[in-house]
């Protein structure tokens, strides 16, 4: 049986996190949030959510631990290869008509999505004229993303994904193997700016031609999802591209009229004006 947790305790804890650490989880989807908090509570040896709240209020050093539970996202290079194949075939030829490109990976976690885009762009001859902004709220994830080091045992799946995504060369052209890890090559990292940005509290920072925000909005409630989609509509250039996760859509959102489907199966949209 799950330990008892009241809605009030959850609200108070998220408010405490916001007031103390300025991370705003108050509009995350409640059901998943509750599960994650229960998990954190167990692993951080607290008998109640109120106890967990007291712990993070009085000891700043334990907050990053909680943040991990609330933000952790597991990804892969070329996760959902069909998506990257659709990008390669349908979107990149259109992006190639721009003299310079800016791409925003919103919720980049530990960097896999950003490096996948960089590799894809390199293969299609577009990386040299592209800047990739990869943002997340978790500093620890951003540091790992910046380092671009992935365990070697994950490379098998990455390689399969890359091939299924229509990869032209060998994935090994894009990393150096060192001990038990693969380090992404500097040519990729040079084109990526990893930065702290919150879809809950920050605003847009640049005009971009493409935004990828996959499997992030499922964790937001309606209000926060709409806020994020509104940021995307503002940040995208006219007819810019928005990529969502394979089971996400702009349906059931007030912002739906700002986008039209380009590739329904892969959840690729274009901004309309």
């Amino acid at each position: 049986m799950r330990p008892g947790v009241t809605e009030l305790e959850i609200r108070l804890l998220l408010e405490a996190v916001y007031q103390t650490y300025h991370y705003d989880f108050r509009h995350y989807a409640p059901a998943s949030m509750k599960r994650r908090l229960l998990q954190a509570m167990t692993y951080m040896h607290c008998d109640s959510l109120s106890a967990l709240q007291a712990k993070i209020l009085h000891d700043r050093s334990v907050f990053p631990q909680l943040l991990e539970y609330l933000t952790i996202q597991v990804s892969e290079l070329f996760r959902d290869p069909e998506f990257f194949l659709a990008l390669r075939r349908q979107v990149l030829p259109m992006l190639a008509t721009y003299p310079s490109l800016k791409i925003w990976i919103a919720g980049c976690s530990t960097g896999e999505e950003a490096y996948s885009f960089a590799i894809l762009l390199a293969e299609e001859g577009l990386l040299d004229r592209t800047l990739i902004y990869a943002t997340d709220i978790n500093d620890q994830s951003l540091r790992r993303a910046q380092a671009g080091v992935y365990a070697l045992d994950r490379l098998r799946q990455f390689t399969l994904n890359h091939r299924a995504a229509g990869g032209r060369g060998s994935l090994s052209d894009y990393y150096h193997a060192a001990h038990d890890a693969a380090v992404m090559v500097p040519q990729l990292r040079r084109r990526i700016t990893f930065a702290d940005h919150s879809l809950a509290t920050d605003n847009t920072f640049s005009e971009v031609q493409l935004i990828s925000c996959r499997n992030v909005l499922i964790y937001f409630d309606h209000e926060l999802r709409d806020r994020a989609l509104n940021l995307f509509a503002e940040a995208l250039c006219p007819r810019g591209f928005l990529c969502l996760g394979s089971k996400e859509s702009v349906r059931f959102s007030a912002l739906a009229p700002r986008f039209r489907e380009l590739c329904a199966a892969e959840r690729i949209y274009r901004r309309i004006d």
Partner: protein
Amino acid sequence: MSALPAESAGAATVAAVVIGGSAGALEVLRPMLAALPPAISVPIVIVVHLPERSQHQLAAVLNHGSAVAVKQAEDKEPIRAGQVYVAPPAYHLLMEPSLTFALSLDDPVHYSRPAIDVLFESALDVYGDRLLAILLSGASEDGAAGLQEVHAAGGITIVQAPHSAAVAIMPRAALALFRPTHTWSPADLAAGLPQLLSLPTECRSPP
């Protein structure tokens, strides 16, 4: 919603049905859905463990022969009465207090995503003792803990009778934890579910 006194039996009106199963569950689900009248006054939400490829087909497979429409639940979709929903492949399916669905890619539970416990526990947080939860044949212990919580909160719980299950691990895991409201064979389920859903209420038009 309703603060009216419960029926004489003391049972609260069922507001939603959640169903979980794995190996051997489809064979039970199909006749069960086929036995339902076209207009039901609750949503029915189903998680069945299947290989990802078959999971894509689940809504179509269950739709065949069911008078009630079956669809794959979408993220942030409003939960509607009179509709059967199944989880999309490889995502957890949760029910939200705002009466919408939510998806998550959080870790598998009992090696499963979608997981039955995740659906049951989130549904319980929304519907409380007005939830009816059913655990079918299966080769995993997923769902047992969630079902126990539904039971403890006063919801109706039904476990497929282990002797009638193609794989009895799942029903047995639940029965090891508590005594459900009913332990039913597939035939009992097909006959009994419509009855449980037709409890009279003040706000429903007659069928």
